[in-house]
Each structure stands twice: as C-alpha cells, then as structure tokens.
C-alpha cells in the first residue's frame, strides 16, 4: 500500500517537462518534492503566482509572499505576480496544463466532491470549483477508503459536488485508475503489497480490470 509520499511520488511521474502545474493543499503539495530536478516546471498558485519556489529559510519569511494554502513561500527567478481575477483567467482559459487536487469522493463518471460535509464541515470551495470546471487534465490524489473502511470511489457521490464529469485519473493508496468516458474506474497499476481482491473491496463504484495489472514502481 502507498503512503501519502508514495501517492505523491507516483503522481510526480505524470508531470512532463515544461508544464504549468497547480497543486492543491495536502498530498498534492508533496508532489513538488518528487519532480525531477532537470525538469522546467512552473508552479501556479491561485492567489496570484507563477513560479512558486520552496519555503523560505528560517527568518526570511515574508508576510506578503504566501501561497494559496496561506503558507510562507519564495519565488523562483522569472516568477510573476498577478491579481486573483487574472489568476483564474489563466485557469479558465486552460493555460495551466495540470491540476492535482484532493477529494473526499469521486464517482465512476468522474464527478468529484471535496468541499462540504453538510451540517459538519463548512470551509468553502475556494478555487476548486473553478479549477475542475476548466482544467483539461485533472489528477486526484486521495485515500481510497475512510477511517471506517468505506470506499470513496463510488457509483455516485453522496456529498455535495465540486464538479461533474471532470476527473480523468486517480491515484490512491491502492492503485492508479483512469476514469473511463463511458463510466468506471479502470485499474491501471496496483500498489505494492495490494491484491486485486483488496482493490475490489475498496472500490464501491464500477471497477474495470483488464489483463495483468502492473505493480506501481516507486
């Protein structure tokens, strides 16, 4: 089974040289640790940055330089700063190549829910609805089962939706899945130490398995 860093490491393999990438909060943020050093990747943060760098050295943090997770960060050489409307302009106009975000639930037709648990958690959607409605290439990083052991890959989302038919690829502790255009989670790769039977138990929605499924190399 993959841990959080394993999921991030596997997702990093989806990143191509030259991409503009938006990373959500949580596991997606970890992806930046595993992008090959020789790659020229520009990280977008929706509060208004292209060219987000690593955390500042101790004592060098600046209240005016934060990312969308409100963490102090640095800017790389060649970075640019812009306002929030411009930021979502480049997202809506599909200039950002890859969006990686977390989810509470994903359905077999690619619907995603990640912003609200009615009566319990009210945090808001932030930029997630704009990102999933416009991005061409969305990868979801998530835990496939909750603490009670229930699957979060469903035939239909139970929580309020963030977007419809938008998720194309999912990486979880159990494996890598494509969301098929006709509906269904197609298992592309399986995590080390996980059996097909484990995957079946952890998938409540339609699962598609064809031939031998390779083990994730991380």
């Amino acid at each position, binding site marked *: 089974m993959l841990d959080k860093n394993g999921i991030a490491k596997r997702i990093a393999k989806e990143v191509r040289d030259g991409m503009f990438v938006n990373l959500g909060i949580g596991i997606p943020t970890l992806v930046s640790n595993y992008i090959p050093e020789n790659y020229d990747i520009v990280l977008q943060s929706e509060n208004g940055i292209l060219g987000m760098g690593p955390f500042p050295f101790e004592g060098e943090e600046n209240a005016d330089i934060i990312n969308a997770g*409100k963490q102090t960060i640095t800017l790389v050489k060649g970075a640019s700063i812009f306002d*929030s409307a411009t930021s979502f302009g480049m997202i809506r106009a599909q200039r950002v190549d890859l969006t990686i975000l977390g989810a509470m639930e994903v359905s077999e037709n690619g619907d995603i829910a990640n912003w609200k648990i009615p009566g319990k958690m009210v945090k808001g959607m932030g930029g997630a609805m704009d990102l999933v409605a416009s991005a061409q290439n969305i990868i979801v990083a998530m835990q496939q089962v909750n603490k009670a052991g229930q699957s979060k890959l469903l035939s239909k989302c139970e929580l309020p939706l963030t977007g419809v038919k938008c998720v194309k690829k999912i990486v979880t502790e159990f494996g890598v899945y494509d969301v098929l255009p006709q509906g269904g989670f197609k298992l592309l790769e399986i995590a080390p130490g996980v059996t097909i039977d484990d995957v079946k138990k952890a998938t409540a929605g339609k699962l598609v398995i064809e031939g031998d499924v390779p083990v994730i190399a991380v």
Partner: protein
Amino acid sequence: MINRVVKNAEEALKDVKDGSTIMLGGFGLCGIPENSIAQLIKMGVKNLTCISNNAGVDDFGLGLLLQSRQIKKMIASYVGENDEFERQMLSGELEVELVPQGTLATRCMMAGYGIPFFPTPAGVGTEVAQGKEVKSITWRGQTKDYLIEKAFESDFAIVKAWKGDSAGNLVYRRTARNFNQPMAMAGKITIAEVEEIVELGELDPDHIHTPGIFVNRIFKGEKYEKRIEQITVRKK
C-alpha cells in the same frame, strides 16, 4: 490632480453605515486592510454585508468583526480556520454565500469593468448553480454549460496597497495584491489604505496597478501587524 488623501481611517470610513455592503481585499491575512477593519469595530456599524475571499481567523482580520457581531452576511470562497464563523453559520446567526474563488474575483472585476453579467463554467451541476440561469455556449470549438453570474454591487470597496500617491494611484506588493486590485475598481466608493504615501511622480506610470480614478480616498495606515497565518520555513 485632485488630492484624494484623507487624514486617517476615521475620515476615510466616515459614511459607512449600518447595513452597508463592503468589499474587503486580501487573501487569508495577506493584504487585508487592517486599519480599516479596526476602524469599523470602533464605529460599531452593524448588519454589514462583507464580500471577501476569506473571513479572517478568530482573533484577526474579519474574524474581529464576527466576534463583535457586526456582520449580517458574508460572501466568501473559503472560510476555514475560523471557529466563530463556523459556529455563527451553523447556528443560523450569520447568512453565508459561498462563491467559487474565480467567480468571486470575476464578480469584482466585472463590476469594475461595468459589465453586469458573465458566463462561467465553475459550479455547473453543483449547489452553486441553484437558482441560476445555465447557458450552453460554443466557444473555441468546445460546447459547455455555463452559469450566468452577476457582477457585485457594493457600496464600498476597502483595499490595502503597498504604496500610493495623492492622485490615488496604487501599487501592491507581491501576493498581497490578490483581490485588492479587482476590488479597487468595483466599489461605488473605494477606500485605499497604504503603507506609504509617496510624492506625485514617484510612482512610474507604467508600474501603477490601480489608476487613481478608481480610488476615492486614500490614507496611510497607522500601523501594520501583517500577521502570518502559517509560517513554513526550511533549515539553512
């Protein structure tokens, strides 16, 4: 040029009343109009509708106006990190409209551009679409559903900039620009607080983010705490 400088926050916010709708710039605690928020608390104006990306934290930013029960309705995209907000929302004391962040920014921008409606794909098929017109539009070869969203109508926009001059021209610093720039164009009355007021001519005309025509009043903030929400660092 008309001198738009006023003495302090008290003079700048003198006509904010009970029931006013106010936009407030900032992202998290970054680039928030700290001095104006302190003044609103001092004034005790009530039943405010506040439009801001976030609602501050419990003891700073807009969280302070929640503690003092001055906000009737909050329009925001993300309100985590604020227990008092959550409590007031779940108990029904506070009216809340959650808006996707890009839609929120564009509703400000369009108000500044004088365009009352615009289509956006964000929120199609979700709760956000309830009660809104949905339009199928073909553009750049893609046919998609779009929600028709409305530009904000706001009595005041209160923004925070780094530097400004007496003509009201503004320059923001780093990611403290965020919602301040679109909001500055969007208020019926726009009030800017700045860290520094510089001489006319000192700001390069090519480098001005908000032209002074949009800014009705500008003042130098008395002090800036500039609190950081999450200090994240690496070792040297």
